[in-house]
């Protein structure tokens, strides 16, 4: 993975220190039907381009962080 992730606690680190936490998605309203929750839990955009993602710094500060990454170029646009 040719990129580094800038952790606000630990600084610039290899992505191998992190666990990918999936796309950032908006949770359905509490009263939403089962299909909406099922889609939220199991379906992903898996898009080719810029997306917001969760990453967990498993081997560092054990914190979750949100980054905006281009999944084609691995460029991190915003952290």
């Amino acid at each position: 993975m040719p990129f580094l992730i800038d952790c606000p606690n630990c600084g610039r680190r290899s992505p191998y220190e992190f666990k990918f936490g999936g796309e950032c998605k908006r949770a359905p309203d509490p009263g939403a039907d089962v299909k909406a929750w099922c889609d939220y839990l199991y379906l992903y955009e898996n898009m080719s381009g810029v997306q917001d993602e969760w990453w967990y710094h498993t081997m560092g500060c054990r914190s979750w962080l949100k980054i905006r990454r281009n999944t084609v170029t691995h460029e991190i646009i915003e952290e």
Partner: protein
Amino acid sequence: MMTHARAIALPGWAGKPVETQLEGWPVVERFEPPEGDCAVGLTDLSHRPKAIVQGAGAQRLGLARPGQAVWNGQSLAGCLKPGHAVVLDLTGPLEMKPADSSWTDMTDGWVLLGLWGPLSLDVVQGLVTVDVEPRERGGALFFATSCHGVPVQLFNLRAQKPGFVISCARSHGQNLFEACIRAGRQSGLKVTGLKAYSDWLCGPAA
């Protein structure tokens, strides 16, 4: 309490360990024949008290930002993230007396290795991928990072002489110990007992 079964297995070339008991902990005092001077010493300090401190206890340590560490000549405290700190006691009594419930005793859960000596920086940089001696930062430093895929906590003491302590979960302790030996092979690393480490840290006992 650590037992011989859970202690780190020492390499045969380290010499014959002269063991002793420190408040119930089996520790290696020195090796026979004596280790002598070495460019890098590797010492098992797993019997030393270790703790994770959270909340109010962490705030009392006075660590302002992650990565910052304090070495007062007896204990090390490093800031993991706001409100979380790692504390290692290197010279005080072995019985830990937590100030309050914000402490989690990790003495049994983590191994602790001391890497010290003139070439210790070379060995540590062979273990982790972060810059452990950044020129722009002063004082003792703390790093939470990985070594061969194992989460480790690393302190750069930045005392008068180069020295580091590195800890990880006890289940990975033997692997970390052997990784240190491999990284230090070219630098003349020697496995030493507690006496050599104490002499380095506090000066030779009178």
